[in-house]
């Protein structure tokens, strides 16, 4: 097994054994979306109109919930020091940790989203764009979040600081994610929006490892 997959496997194993994080993210996502019909009333037209926005905003917040732990546990128990000192480039380790994070948060969020769409009377034409958009968008959430998680290491109340740093960066993902679903429902093509999400994902894949690795080196110095 390569060192990259060894690190992914270890993070997955930790996440699944401790269980809490992944289940909490999905629980938060589902419960928060369920609150909206109670809050704004059950009229199908209204819910249908706001469904893409609700699902995407809630998914952003749910992903944010789990980010604080991305490097925090390793930082506290000294593992981060040992990871930084491995012969494997830290940039590759950042990608491995993001991949593991996405597999236990972003992927389940993507799979649950259509079910919540049913609950909110989401227009039938919007489902493919919702799932594709989430599949492209949630990895960006994990990647951008890694920068925030690395920068907030060692800070008091790091979770709040992390939200303040990362949420503004999530705005483009939100815009194109929602626009893709709404375009499909309005009979337009979702393709341009999905392509823009794909471009954002590629840019994040290329740039995030360097930024996050720099922040991690700073944190263990």
């Amino acid at each position, binding site marked *: *097994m390569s*060192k990259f997959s*060894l*690190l992914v496997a*270890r993070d997955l*194993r*930790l996440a699944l*054994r*401790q269980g809490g994080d992944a289940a909490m993210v999905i629980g938060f996502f589902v419960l928060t979306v369920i609150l909206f019909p109670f809050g704004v009333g059950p009229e199908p037209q209204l819910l249908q109109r706001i469904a893409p926005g609700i699902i995407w905003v809630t998914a952003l917040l749910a992903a944010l919930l789990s980010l604080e732990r991305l490097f925090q*546990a390793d930082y*506290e*128990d*000294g*593992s981060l*020091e*040992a*990871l*930084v*000192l*491995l*012969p*494997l*480039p830290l940039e590759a380790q950042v990608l491995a940790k993001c991949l593991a994070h996405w597999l236990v948060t972003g992927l389940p969020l993507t799979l649950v989203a259509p079910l919540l769409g049913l609950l909110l009377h989401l227009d039938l034409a919007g489902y493919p764009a919702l799932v594709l958009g989430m599949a492209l968008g949630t990895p960006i959430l994990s990647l951008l979040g890694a920068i925030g998680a690395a920068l907030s290491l060692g800070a008091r109340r790091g979770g709040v600081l992390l939200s303040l740093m990362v949420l503004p960066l999530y705005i483009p993902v939100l815009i194109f994610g929602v626009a893709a679903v709404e375009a499909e429902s309005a009979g337009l093509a979702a393709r341009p929006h999905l392509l823009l999400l794909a471009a954002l994902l590629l840019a994040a894949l290329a740039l995030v490892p360097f930024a996050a690795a720099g922040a991690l080196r700073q944190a*263990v*110095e």
Partner: protein
Amino acid sequence: MSEPAFPIPADRAAAGFAGAGLACRRGERLIFSRLDFALKPGGALILVGPNGSGKSSLLRLMAGLTPAWRGRLSWDGADIAADREAHRARLHFIGHADAVKPALSVEESLRFWAGMRAGAGDEPRDSAAVLAQFGLETAARLPCRYLSAGQKRRLALARLIASPAPLWLLDEPLTGLDRDAAAQLLAAIAAHRRQGGSVALSTHAPLDLGDAAELSLAAFRPTRQEIGEAVEA
């Protein structure tokens, strides 16, 4: 500020790990300066000094975790800054924290770190034998959350022999260890040195490593002028 050149004296340049003119700054505070050391293959260096004199800082600097404020480190005469990854591949650093995950078992934990450090041609070492060397063979299947502080320390030290590396940097390795474990550590260090490995460690307890050199950090307190320069820089 221009960095002064720190030539490694010819008698040290040949083989091993050496530092010349090292100074370490944490925040605005200069901790030590003008520090030279040489660690030959098979050699051992014991760092002594009162709390806060910079033993841990020097070990972190040797590992490359913290950059040196002044001076340079070299391995076999070549500056380590030239190839950081090669330097990381040749060292084991065991700091104050044990890097032990409560949810992983003892064996999984050891396998993970050994796998992450394994070189291309390394034979994987038998983890049961490695654990037995530190008296952890009966705890192999146990999740690490059930380990005592001393057992966690033993597990951290077992990483040293789970994958080979010529340079060991140990920060207070005896903390929390009972007499048996301390003896096992000394035996591991002796075996490591017989194979040409070198070790630098900090300690407060008297430690018998035979012909180890002692480096007293108290001798490298910065001068008033250097402290001023460190604040200004």
